[in-house]
Protein backbone atom coordinates (compact mmCIF):
# COMPACT_ATOMS: atom_id res chain seq x y z
CA UNK A 1 0.00 0.00 0.00
CA UNK A 2 1.55 3.29 -1.10
CA UNK A 3 1.44 5.97 1.59
CA UNK A 4 -0.94 8.86 1.12
CA UNK A 5 0.54 12.22 1.92
CA UNK A 6 -1.30 15.46 2.59
CA UNK A 7 0.43 18.76 1.91
CA UNK A 8 -1.32 21.25 4.18
CA UNK A 9 -1.09 24.80 2.82
CA UNK A 10 -1.98 26.69 5.98
CA UNK A 11 -1.98 30.33 7.06
CA UNK A 12 -0.27 30.62 10.45
CA UNK A 13 -0.69 33.66 12.67
CA UNK A 14 2.56 35.49 13.34
CA UNK A 15 3.93 34.63 16.77
CA UNK A 16 0.71 33.07 18.06
CA UNK A 17 1.73 29.54 19.07
CA UNK A 18 -1.58 28.68 20.72
CA UNK A 19 -3.66 29.61 17.68
CA UNK A 20 -1.26 27.86 15.34
CA UNK A 21 -1.21 24.71 17.46
CA UNK A 22 -5.01 24.61 17.32
CA UNK A 23 -4.80 25.02 13.54
CA UNK A 24 -2.36 22.11 13.30
CA UNK A 25 -4.38 19.83 15.55
CA UNK A 26 -7.55 20.53 13.57
CA UNK A 27 -5.78 19.74 10.30
CA UNK A 28 -4.19 16.63 11.79
CA UNK A 29 -7.55 15.46 13.10
CA UNK A 30 -9.16 15.91 9.70
CA UNK A 31 -6.31 14.18 7.89
CA UNK A 32 -6.46 11.26 10.33
CA UNK A 33 -10.18 11.03 9.72
CA UNK A 34 -9.51 11.03 5.97
CA UNK A 35 -7.13 8.08 6.26
CA UNK A 36 -3.99 10.05 5.40
CA UNK A 37 -0.64 8.51 6.41
CA UNK A 38 1.52 11.61 6.55
CA UNK A 39 0.61 15.29 6.81
CA UNK A 40 3.23 17.92 6.05
CA UNK A 41 3.04 21.57 7.08
CA UNK A 42 5.11 24.48 5.72
CA UNK A 43 8.27 26.07 7.11
CA UNK A 44 7.75 27.69 10.53
CA UNK A 45 4.11 26.61 10.41
CA UNK A 46 3.82 26.71 14.19
CA UNK A 47 5.10 30.27 14.53
CA UNK A 48 4.75 32.36 11.37
CA UNK A 49 7.72 33.64 9.41
CA UNK A 50 8.91 37.25 9.87
CA UNK A 51 9.41 36.82 13.60
CA UNK A 52 12.39 39.15 14.09
CA UNK A 53 12.55 39.84 17.86
CA UNK A 54 9.70 37.40 18.50
CA UNK A 55 12.01 34.54 17.54
CA UNK A 56 13.24 33.89 21.05
CA UNK A 57 9.69 34.20 22.46
CA UNK A 58 8.38 31.37 20.32
CA UNK A 59 11.45 29.09 20.44
CA UNK A 60 10.60 25.68 21.89
CA UNK A 61 12.52 22.52 22.67
CA UNK A 62 11.12 19.13 21.78
CA UNK A 63 9.77 18.68 25.31
CA UNK A 64 7.66 21.85 25.17
CA UNK A 65 3.90 21.31 25.57
CA UNK A 66 3.19 22.42 22.00
CA UNK A 67 5.62 19.87 20.58
CA UNK A 68 4.48 17.21 23.06
CA UNK A 69 0.90 17.48 21.88
CA UNK A 70 1.99 17.12 18.24
CA UNK A 71 4.24 14.19 19.09
CA UNK A 72 1.27 12.61 20.84
CA UNK A 73 -0.92 13.21 17.78
CA UNK A 74 1.67 11.42 15.64
CA UNK A 75 0.56 8.09 17.11
CA UNK A 76 -2.23 8.19 14.54
CA UNK A 77 -0.54 9.89 11.60
CA UNK A 78 2.99 10.94 10.68
CA UNK A 79 3.51 14.70 10.92
CA UNK A 80 6.03 17.13 9.47
CA UNK A 81 5.88 20.49 11.21
CA UNK A 82 7.93 23.68 11.10
CA UNK A 83 8.91 25.40 14.33
CA UNK A 84 11.58 27.47 16.04
CA UNK A 85 13.78 25.02 17.87
CA UNK A 86 15.49 25.98 21.07
CA UNK A 87 18.49 23.65 21.24
CA UNK A 88 20.06 22.52 24.54
CA UNK A 89 23.18 24.59 23.82
CA UNK A 90 21.09 27.76 23.59
CA UNK A 91 21.13 28.07 19.83
CA UNK A 92 17.89 28.68 17.96
CA UNK A 93 17.11 26.98 14.65
CA UNK A 94 14.60 27.25 11.85
CA UNK A 95 13.62 23.61 12.24
CA UNK A 96 11.34 20.98 10.74
CA UNK A 97 10.42 17.98 12.85
CA UNK A 98 9.33 14.61 11.48
CA UNK A 99 7.04 13.00 14.06
CA UNK A 100 5.82 9.42 13.87
CA UNK A 101 4.37 6.81 16.22
CA UNK A 102 4.57 9.14 19.18
CA UNK A 103 8.25 10.02 18.78
CA UNK A 104 10.57 12.36 16.95
CA UNK A 105 12.14 10.58 13.99
CA UNK A 106 14.35 13.50 13.15
CA UNK A 107 14.70 17.26 13.03
CA UNK A 108 16.04 19.06 9.97
CA UNK A 109 17.62 22.37 10.89
CA UNK A 110 17.61 24.72 7.91
CA UNK A 111 21.13 24.80 6.56
CA UNK A 112 20.93 27.62 4.05
CA UNK A 113 19.51 30.53 5.99
CA UNK A 114 18.50 33.25 3.60
CA UNK A 115 19.91 36.67 4.36
CA UNK A 116 19.52 38.93 1.37
CA UNK A 117 16.78 41.00 -0.17
CA UNK A 118 13.78 40.92 2.16
CA UNK A 119 15.25 38.12 4.30
CA UNK A 120 17.41 38.30 7.41
CA UNK A 121 17.34 34.77 8.80
CA UNK A 122 21.01 34.66 9.76
CA UNK A 123 20.30 37.45 12.19
CA UNK A 124 17.79 35.33 14.11
CA UNK A 125 18.77 31.69 13.57
CA UNK A 126 21.78 29.44 13.81
CA UNK A 127 22.35 27.36 10.68
CA UNK A 128 21.95 23.61 10.52
CA UNK A 129 24.96 21.59 9.47
CA UNK A 130 23.69 18.44 7.81
CA UNK A 131 21.18 16.75 5.58
CA UNK A 132 20.17 13.43 7.12
CA UNK A 133 17.39 11.44 5.45
CA UNK A 134 14.41 10.60 7.64
CA UNK A 135 13.74 6.88 7.83
CA UNK A 136 9.96 6.75 8.11
CA UNK A 137 7.72 3.73 7.89
CA UNK A 138 6.34 5.49 4.81
CA UNK A 139 9.70 5.78 3.07
CA UNK A 140 12.99 7.58 3.19
CA UNK A 141 12.48 11.34 2.98
CA UNK A 142 14.87 14.19 2.27
CA UNK A 143 13.70 17.27 4.14
CA UNK A 144 14.65 20.60 2.64
CA UNK A 145 13.58 23.95 4.01
CA UNK A 146 12.94 26.61 1.37
CA UNK A 147 16.35 28.16 0.61
CA UNK A 148 17.97 24.73 1.12
CA UNK A 149 16.66 23.90 -2.35
CA UNK A 150 18.37 26.91 -3.94
CA UNK A 151 21.71 25.31 -3.12
CA UNK A 152 22.67 21.99 -4.66
CA UNK A 153 24.34 20.27 -1.72
CA UNK A 154 21.32 19.05 0.23
CA UNK A 155 19.49 17.76 -2.81
CA UNK A 156 22.65 16.04 -4.01
CA UNK A 157 23.37 14.37 -0.67
CA UNK A 158 19.80 13.13 -0.40
CA UNK A 159 20.01 11.89 -3.98
CA UNK A 160 23.14 9.96 -3.11
CA UNK A 161 21.38 8.59 -0.01
CA UNK A 162 18.60 7.31 -2.24
CA UNK A 163 15.63 9.09 -0.75
CA UNK A 164 12.16 8.09 -1.96
CA UNK A 165 10.99 11.69 -2.09
CA UNK A 166 12.08 15.23 -1.38
CA UNK A 167 9.82 17.06 1.01
CA UNK A 168 10.29 20.80 0.67
CA UNK A 169 8.63 22.97 3.27
CA UNK A 170 8.60 26.65 2.54
CA UNK A 171 7.47 30.07 3.69
CA UNK A 172 8.03 31.47 0.24
CA UNK A 173 6.99 35.06 -0.40
CA UNK A 174 5.47 35.89 -3.76
CA UNK A 175 6.86 38.57 -6.03
CA UNK A 176 7.03 39.45 -9.67
CA UNK A 177 3.85 40.48 -11.46
CA UNK A 178 5.33 41.52 -14.79
CA UNK A 179 3.75 39.94 -17.80
CA UNK A 180 5.60 37.09 -19.45
CA UNK A 181 4.91 35.73 -22.89
CA UNK A 182 3.94 32.06 -22.60
CA UNK A 183 6.31 29.61 -24.21
CA UNK A 184 5.02 27.27 -26.90
CA UNK A 185 2.58 24.82 -25.44
CA UNK A 186 2.15 26.75 -22.19
CA UNK A 187 -1.08 28.48 -21.38
CA UNK A 188 -1.02 32.13 -20.44
CA UNK A 189 -2.37 31.61 -16.92
CA UNK A 190 -1.33 34.26 -14.43
CA UNK A 191 1.59 33.22 -12.30
CA UNK A 192 3.89 35.09 -9.97
CA UNK A 193 7.43 35.02 -11.29
CA UNK A 194 8.62 33.65 -7.93
CA UNK A 195 6.25 30.70 -8.33
CA UNK A 196 7.47 30.18 -11.87
CA UNK A 197 11.01 29.98 -10.52
CA UNK A 198 9.98 27.56 -7.79
CA UNK A 199 8.23 25.35 -10.30
CA UNK A 200 11.30 25.29 -12.51
CA UNK A 201 13.57 24.35 -9.60
CA UNK A 202 11.24 21.59 -8.38
CA UNK A 203 10.90 20.10 -11.85
CA UNK A 204 14.64 20.27 -12.39
CA UNK A 205 15.29 18.65 -9.03
CA UNK A 206 12.93 15.78 -9.92
CA UNK A 207 14.51 15.32 -13.33
CA UNK A 208 18.16 15.26 -12.34
CA UNK A 209 17.51 12.96 -9.39
CA UNK A 210 14.55 10.95 -10.72
CA UNK A 211 12.88 11.49 -7.38
CA UNK A 212 9.40 12.81 -6.56
CA UNK A 213 9.29 16.34 -5.15
CA UNK A 214 6.63 17.35 -2.64
CA UNK A 215 6.43 21.10 -2.07
CA UNK A 216 4.33 22.61 0.71
CA UNK A 217 4.24 26.38 1.01
CA UNK A 218 2.15 28.62 3.24
CA UNK A 219 -0.26 31.43 2.41
CA UNK A 220 -1.35 34.65 4.09
CA UNK A 221 0.21 38.07 4.56
CA UNK A 222 2.76 39.49 6.97
CA UNK A 223 3.09 43.28 6.67
CA UNK A 224 2.34 43.47 2.98
CA UNK A 225 4.34 40.39 2.02
CA UNK A 226 2.26 37.58 0.57
CA UNK A 227 3.20 33.95 0.99
CA UNK A 228 2.54 32.53 -2.42
CA UNK A 229 1.13 29.04 -1.91
CA UNK A 230 1.53 27.00 -5.10
CA UNK A 231 1.79 23.81 -3.04
CA UNK A 232 2.27 21.00 -5.52
CA UNK A 233 3.85 17.62 -6.12
CA UNK A 234 5.64 16.16 -9.11
CA UNK A 235 6.65 12.55 -9.72
CA UNK A 236 10.13 11.31 -10.60
CA UNK A 237 9.59 12.38 -14.21
CA UNK A 238 8.51 15.87 -13.11
CA UNK A 239 4.92 15.22 -14.09
CA UNK A 240 2.53 17.26 -11.99
CA UNK A 241 0.60 14.86 -9.76
CA UNK A 242 -0.99 17.29 -7.27
CA UNK A 243 -1.73 20.99 -7.14
CA UNK A 244 -0.70 23.64 -7.60
CA UNK A 245 -2.87 25.32 -4.99
CA UNK A 246 -3.58 29.05 -5.22
CA UNK A 247 -3.31 31.74 -2.56
CA UNK A 248 -6.00 30.39 -0.24
CA UNK A 249 -5.51 27.86 2.54
CA UNK A 250 -6.14 24.30 1.41
CA UNK A 251 -4.47 20.99 0.90
CA UNK A 252 -3.57 18.45 -1.75
CA UNK A 253 -3.22 14.72 -1.27
CA UNK A 254 -0.65 12.71 -3.13
CA UNK A 255 0.19 9.03 -3.15
CA UNK A 256 3.86 8.30 -3.30
CA UNK A 257 4.15 6.06 -6.34
CA UNK A 258 7.18 3.84 -5.80
CA UNK A 259 6.44 1.91 -8.97
CA UNK A 260 6.50 5.04 -11.09
CA UNK A 261 9.74 6.10 -9.42
CA UNK A 262 11.32 2.69 -10.06
CA UNK A 263 10.34 2.79 -13.72
CA UNK A 264 11.70 6.30 -14.08
CA UNK A 265 15.00 5.26 -12.51
CA UNK A 266 15.17 2.17 -14.70
CA UNK A 267 14.67 4.21 -17.85
CA UNK A 268 17.05 6.90 -16.71
CA UNK A 269 19.54 5.42 -14.21
CA UNK A 270 21.18 8.65 -13.18
CA UNK A 271 21.99 7.54 -9.66
CA UNK A 272 23.73 4.39 -10.95
CA UNK A 273 25.91 6.46 -13.25
CA UNK A 274 26.75 9.19 -10.78
CA UNK A 275 30.48 9.66 -10.08
CA UNK A 276 30.67 11.29 -6.67
CA UNK A 277 34.42 10.84 -6.43
CA UNK A 278 34.81 13.38 -9.21
CA UNK A 279 32.87 15.82 -7.05
CA UNK A 280 34.98 14.89 -4.04
CA UNK A 281 38.19 15.26 -6.01
CA UNK A 282 37.09 18.60 -7.39
CA UNK A 283 36.10 19.89 -3.97
CA UNK A 284 39.42 18.76 -2.57
CA UNK A 285 41.29 20.49 -5.37
CA UNK A 286 39.36 23.74 -5.19
CA UNK A 287 38.63 24.05 -1.48
CA UNK A 288 40.72 21.47 0.33
CA UNK A 289 37.59 20.45 2.25
CA UNK A 290 37.17 16.85 1.16
CA UNK A 291 39.82 14.19 0.86
CA UNK A 292 39.75 12.56 -2.55
CA UNK A 293 38.46 9.05 -2.87
CA UNK A 294 39.12 6.78 -5.83
CA UNK A 295 35.65 5.35 -6.23
CA UNK A 296 32.22 5.11 -4.68
CA UNK A 297 31.78 2.19 -2.27
CA UNK A 298 29.19 -0.32 -3.29
CA UNK A 299 25.84 -0.07 -1.65
CA UNK A 300 25.85 -1.68 1.79
CA UNK A 301 29.61 -1.78 2.20
CA UNK A 302 31.63 0.15 4.69
CA UNK A 303 32.89 3.31 3.01
CA UNK A 304 36.13 3.10 5.01
Amino acid at each position, binding site marked *: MEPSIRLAQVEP*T*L*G*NLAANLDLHLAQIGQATHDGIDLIAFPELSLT*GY*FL*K*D*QTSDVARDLDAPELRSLIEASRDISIVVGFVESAPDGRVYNATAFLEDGRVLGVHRKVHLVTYGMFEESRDFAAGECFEPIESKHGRFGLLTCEDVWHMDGAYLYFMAGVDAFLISSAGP*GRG*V*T*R*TEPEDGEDAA*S*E*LSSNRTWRTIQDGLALWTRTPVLYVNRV*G*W*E*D*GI*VFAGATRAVDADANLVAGPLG*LDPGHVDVTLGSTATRRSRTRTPLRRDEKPWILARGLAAHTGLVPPSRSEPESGTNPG
Partner: protein
Amino acid sequence: MSVIDSKALLDLDPALATDLLVRFLRAEAGKFGFERAVLGLSGGVDSAVSCALAARAFGPQNVLAILMPYRTSNPDSARDAERVVAATGVQSKLVEISDMVDGYLDQEGVQDQTRRGNVMARARMIVLYDHSARDNALVIGTSNKTEILLGYSTQFGDAACALNPLGDLWKHQVFQLAAHLDLPDEVSAKPPSADLFEGQSDEDDLGFSYAEADAVLVRLVDHRWSQDDLVRAGFDADLVERLGRRIVINQYKRLPPIVAKLGERTVNQDFRYLRSWGH
Protein backbone atom coordinates in the same frame (compact mmCIF):
# COMPACT_ATOMS: atom_id res chain seq x y z
CA MET B 1 16.91 58.76 -26.18
CA SER B 2 15.92 58.46 -22.57
CA VAL B 3 13.05 55.99 -22.84
CA ILE B 4 14.62 52.81 -24.11
CA ASP B 5 12.09 50.03 -24.59
CA SER B 6 11.08 49.05 -21.09
CA LYS B 7 7.95 47.08 -21.81
CA ALA B 8 9.38 43.77 -20.63
CA LEU B 9 10.44 45.34 -17.33
CA LEU B 10 7.29 47.34 -16.68
CA ASP B 11 4.30 45.64 -18.28
CA LEU B 12 2.40 43.82 -15.58
CA ASP B 13 -0.15 41.08 -15.59
CA PRO B 14 -3.10 43.24 -14.49
CA ALA B 15 -5.38 40.39 -13.46
CA LEU B 16 -2.68 38.89 -11.24
CA ALA B 17 -1.79 42.26 -9.72
CA THR B 18 -5.44 43.08 -9.06
CA ASP B 19 -6.04 39.74 -7.37
CA LEU B 20 -3.03 40.26 -5.11
CA LEU B 21 -3.88 43.85 -4.22
CA VAL B 22 -7.49 43.04 -3.38
CA ARG B 23 -6.30 40.19 -1.18
CA PHE B 24 -3.72 42.51 0.40
CA LEU B 25 -6.29 45.13 1.37
CA ARG B 26 -8.73 42.57 2.73
CA ALA B 27 -6.10 40.59 4.65
CA GLU B 28 -4.16 43.45 6.20
CA ALA B 29 -7.27 45.42 7.20
CA GLY B 30 -9.11 42.32 8.38
CA LYS B 31 -6.18 41.29 10.56
CA PHE B 32 -6.77 44.39 12.67
CA GLY B 33 -10.56 44.15 12.63
CA PHE B 34 -11.26 46.74 9.93
CA GLU B 35 -13.88 46.19 7.26
CA ARG B 36 -14.19 49.74 5.99
CA ALA B 37 -11.94 52.10 4.07
CA VAL B 38 -11.71 55.83 3.44
CA LEU B 39 -9.64 57.57 0.81
CA GLY B 40 -9.22 60.89 -0.88
CA LEU B 41 -10.41 60.98 -4.48
CA SER B 42 -8.76 63.67 -6.58
CA GLY B 43 -9.98 62.79 -10.05
CA GLY B 44 -6.52 61.53 -10.97
CA VAL B 45 -5.51 58.06 -11.97
CA ASP B 46 -3.77 57.01 -8.74
CA SER B 47 -6.64 57.61 -6.37
CA ALA B 48 -9.05 56.18 -8.95
CA VAL B 49 -7.15 52.89 -8.98
CA SER B 50 -6.91 52.79 -5.18
CA CYS B 51 -10.64 53.46 -5.02
CA ALA B 52 -11.48 50.67 -7.45
CA LEU B 53 -9.25 48.20 -5.59
CA ALA B 54 -10.78 49.18 -2.23
CA ALA B 55 -14.27 48.79 -3.68
CA ARG B 56 -13.42 45.25 -4.74
CA ALA B 57 -11.76 44.42 -1.44
CA PHE B 58 -14.32 45.80 1.00
CA GLY B 59 -17.44 46.14 -1.15
CA PRO B 60 -18.36 49.58 -2.55
CA GLN B 61 -20.80 50.24 0.30
CA ASN B 62 -17.89 50.03 2.76
CA VAL B 63 -15.65 52.52 0.97
CA LEU B 64 -15.96 56.26 1.48
CA ALA B 65 -14.30 58.39 -1.19
CA ILE B 66 -13.89 61.98 -0.08
CA LEU B 67 -13.55 64.73 -2.67
CA MET B 68 -11.58 67.60 -1.15
CA PRO B 69 -11.22 70.44 -3.62
CA TYR B 70 -9.57 73.75 -2.80
CA ARG B 71 -10.97 76.85 -4.46
CA THR B 72 -8.18 76.90 -7.06
CA SER B 73 -8.54 73.20 -7.96
CA ASN B 74 -9.44 72.47 -11.55
CA PRO B 75 -13.24 71.92 -11.72
CA ASP B 76 -12.62 69.08 -14.15
CA SER B 77 -10.97 67.18 -11.31
CA ALA B 78 -14.17 67.01 -9.27
CA ARG B 79 -16.10 65.95 -12.36
CA ASP B 80 -13.61 63.16 -13.03
CA ALA B 81 -13.76 62.11 -9.37
CA GLU B 82 -17.55 61.87 -9.69
CA ARG B 83 -17.06 59.64 -12.71
CA VAL B 84 -14.89 57.34 -10.58
CA VAL B 85 -17.53 57.29 -7.85
CA ALA B 86 -20.15 56.33 -10.43
CA ALA B 87 -17.90 53.66 -12.00
CA THR B 88 -16.95 52.01 -8.70
CA GLY B 89 -20.21 52.50 -6.80
CA VAL B 90 -18.46 53.66 -3.62
CA GLN B 91 -19.93 56.07 -1.10
CA SER B 92 -18.76 59.62 -1.59
CA LYS B 93 -18.68 62.93 0.17
CA LEU B 94 -17.55 66.44 -0.71
CA VAL B 95 -15.47 68.28 1.89
CA GLU B 96 -14.32 71.72 0.71
CA ILE B 97 -10.95 72.46 2.28
CA SER B 98 -10.77 76.13 1.20
CA ASP B 99 -11.91 77.59 4.53
CA MET B 100 -9.67 75.48 6.72
CA VAL B 101 -6.68 75.99 4.44
CA ASP B 102 -7.22 79.74 3.95
CA GLY B 103 -7.73 80.20 7.69
CA TYR B 104 -4.09 79.27 8.15
CA LEU B 105 -2.61 80.60 4.88
CA ASP B 106 -4.18 84.03 5.36
CA GLN B 107 -3.20 84.22 9.00
CA GLU B 108 0.42 83.43 8.16
CA GLY B 109 0.44 85.23 4.80
CA VAL B 110 1.79 82.19 2.98
CA GLN B 111 2.47 82.92 -0.70
CA ASP B 112 5.03 80.25 -1.54
CA GLN B 113 3.46 77.69 -3.85
CA THR B 114 5.18 74.69 -2.26
CA ARG B 115 4.16 75.70 1.25
CA ARG B 116 0.58 76.32 0.10
CA GLY B 117 0.49 72.92 -1.61
CA ASN B 118 1.82 71.20 1.50
CA VAL B 119 -0.82 72.86 3.70
CA MET B 120 -3.56 71.68 1.33
CA ALA B 121 -2.20 68.13 1.29
CA ARG B 122 -2.02 68.09 5.09
CA ALA B 123 -5.52 69.55 5.41
CA ARG B 124 -6.78 66.65 3.30
CA MET B 125 -4.91 64.26 5.59
CA ILE B 126 -6.73 65.77 8.60
CA VAL B 127 -10.08 65.24 6.90
CA LEU B 128 -9.26 61.63 5.99
CA TYR B 129 -8.01 60.69 9.44
CA ASP B 130 -11.00 62.32 11.10
CA HIS B 131 -13.31 60.21 8.96
CA SER B 132 -11.13 57.20 9.67
CA ALA B 133 -11.85 57.64 13.38
CA ARG B 134 -15.50 58.45 12.79
CA ASP B 135 -16.21 55.40 10.63
CA ASN B 136 -13.67 52.94 12.03
CA ALA B 137 -12.25 52.84 8.52
CA LEU B 138 -8.63 52.57 7.40
CA VAL B 139 -7.10 55.28 5.23
CA ILE B 140 -6.08 53.77 1.89
CA GLY B 141 -3.04 55.35 0.25
CA THR B 142 -2.70 56.54 -3.32
CA SER B 143 1.06 57.05 -3.76
CA ASN B 144 2.70 54.97 -6.47
CA LYS B 145 6.28 53.68 -6.44
CA THR B 146 7.52 56.26 -8.93
CA GLU B 147 6.38 59.22 -6.85
CA ILE B 148 7.51 57.62 -3.58
CA LEU B 149 11.02 57.22 -5.00
CA LEU B 150 11.01 60.71 -6.47
CA GLY B 151 9.74 62.14 -3.21
CA TYR B 152 6.97 63.84 -5.20
CA SER B 153 4.53 63.95 -2.32
CA THR B 154 3.92 65.78 0.93
CA GLN B 155 5.19 64.06 4.05
CA PHE B 156 2.30 63.56 6.50
CA GLY B 157 0.03 64.82 3.70
CA ASP B 158 -0.96 62.77 0.68
CA ALA B 159 1.71 60.26 1.67
CA ALA B 160 -0.10 59.48 4.95
CA CYS B 161 -2.12 56.28 5.02
CA ALA B 162 -2.56 52.95 6.78
CA LEU B 163 -2.41 50.68 3.73
CA ASN B 164 -1.03 51.53 0.34
CA PRO B 165 -1.94 49.17 -2.50
CA LEU B 166 -0.05 51.26 -5.10
CA GLY B 167 3.29 51.68 -3.35
CA ASP B 168 5.06 48.98 -5.36
CA LEU B 169 3.53 49.91 -8.73
CA TRP B 170 5.31 52.10 -11.27
CA LYS B 171 3.23 54.89 -12.79
CA HIS B 172 3.05 52.92 -16.05
CA GLN B 173 1.56 50.01 -14.14
CA VAL B 174 -1.01 52.26 -12.45
CA PHE B 175 -2.23 53.25 -15.92
CA GLN B 176 -2.38 49.58 -16.89
CA LEU B 177 -4.49 48.78 -13.83
CA ALA B 178 -6.76 51.73 -14.54
CA ALA B 179 -7.54 50.22 -17.93
CA HIS B 180 -7.97 46.75 -16.47
CA LEU B 181 -10.34 48.05 -13.78
CA ASP B 182 -12.50 49.79 -16.39
CA LEU B 183 -12.00 53.24 -14.93
CA PRO B 184 -13.27 56.19 -16.98
CA ASP B 185 -11.02 57.17 -19.88
CA GLU B 186 -11.05 60.81 -18.76
CA VAL B 187 -9.11 59.83 -15.62
CA SER B 188 -6.29 58.11 -17.51
CA ALA B 189 -6.15 60.35 -20.56
CA LYS B 190 -5.32 63.67 -18.90
CA PRO B 191 -1.81 64.73 -17.86
CA PRO B 192 -1.11 63.73 -14.23
CA SER B 193 -1.42 66.70 -11.87
CA ALA B 194 -1.13 67.29 -8.14
CA ASP B 195 -3.84 69.89 -8.83
CA LEU B 196 -2.63 72.30 -6.20
CA PHE B 197 -3.40 75.09 -8.67
CA GLU B 198 -5.15 75.13 -12.02
CA GLY B 199 -2.99 74.07 -14.95
CA GLN B 200 -0.34 72.37 -12.80
CA SER B 201 1.30 69.33 -14.36
CA ASP B 202 3.43 66.74 -12.57
CA GLU B 203 5.69 66.33 -15.57
CA ASP B 204 6.24 70.13 -15.85
CA ASP B 205 7.07 70.26 -12.13
CA LEU B 206 9.45 67.34 -12.34
CA GLY B 207 11.10 68.29 -15.62
CA PHE B 208 10.81 64.79 -17.08
CA SER B 209 8.02 62.44 -18.05
CA TYR B 210 6.78 59.53 -15.96
CA ALA B 211 7.71 57.23 -18.84
CA GLU B 212 11.29 58.50 -18.66
CA ALA B 213 11.35 58.18 -14.88
CA ASP B 214 9.89 54.65 -14.87
CA ALA B 215 12.38 53.44 -17.47
CA VAL B 216 15.33 54.64 -15.40
CA LEU B 217 13.99 53.85 -11.94
CA VAL B 218 12.94 50.27 -12.67
CA ARG B 219 16.51 49.55 -13.74
CA LEU B 220 18.18 51.44 -10.89
CA VAL B 221 15.94 50.14 -8.14
CA ASP B 222 14.48 46.77 -9.10
CA HIS B 223 17.30 45.46 -11.25
CA ARG B 224 20.27 47.05 -9.50
CA TRP B 225 21.77 48.73 -12.56
CA SER B 226 24.42 51.31 -11.75
CA GLN B 227 24.02 54.83 -13.14
CA ASP B 228 26.97 54.09 -15.44
CA ASP B 229 25.17 51.01 -16.76
CA LEU B 230 22.21 53.19 -17.70
CA VAL B 231 24.33 55.81 -19.45
CA ARG B 232 26.21 53.13 -21.36
CA ALA B 233 22.86 51.70 -22.46
CA GLY B 234 21.94 55.06 -23.95
CA PHE B 235 19.99 56.83 -21.23
CA ASP B 236 20.53 60.56 -20.85
CA ALA B 237 23.29 61.07 -18.31
CA ASP B 238 21.79 64.22 -16.83
CA LEU B 239 18.40 62.58 -16.36
CA VAL B 240 19.92 59.53 -14.74
CA GLU B 241 21.92 61.69 -12.34
CA ARG B 242 18.90 63.83 -11.42
CA LEU B 243 16.71 60.81 -10.78
CA GLY B 244 19.42 59.11 -8.75
CA ARG B 245 19.83 62.23 -6.64
CA ARG B 246 16.09 62.58 -6.06
CA ILE B 247 15.93 59.06 -4.67
CA VAL B 248 18.71 59.82 -2.21
CA ILE B 249 17.59 63.24 -1.00
CA ASN B 250 14.03 62.07 -0.41
CA GLN B 251 14.85 58.97 1.62
CA TYR B 252 13.77 60.85 4.76
CA LYS B 253 10.19 60.93 3.49
CA ARG B 254 10.09 57.17 3.28
CA LEU B 255 11.20 56.38 6.81
CA PRO B 256 9.89 57.04 10.30
CA PRO B 257 11.50 59.91 12.25
CA ILE B 258 15.05 59.42 13.51
CA VAL B 259 15.17 58.42 17.16
CA ALA B 260 18.31 59.14 19.20
CA LYS B 261 19.52 55.84 20.55
CA LEU B 262 20.22 56.02 24.26
CA GLY B 263 19.07 52.72 25.68
CA GLU B 264 19.59 49.04 24.99
CA ARG B 265 16.63 48.64 22.65
CA THR B 266 15.34 51.46 20.55
CA VAL B 267 12.11 51.66 18.58
CA ASN B 268 12.72 51.17 14.84
CA GLN B 269 16.38 50.40 15.38
CA ASP B 270 16.80 47.25 17.41
CA PHE B 271 13.24 46.81 18.64
CA ARG B 272 12.18 44.72 15.66
CA TYR B 273 8.56 43.67 15.26
CA LEU B 274 6.15 43.68 12.36
CA ARG B 275 2.81 45.44 12.50
CA SER B 276 1.41 41.92 12.17
CA TRP B 277 2.86 41.18 15.64
CA GLY B 278 0.27 38.98 17.33
CA HIS B 279 -2.22 39.25 14.45
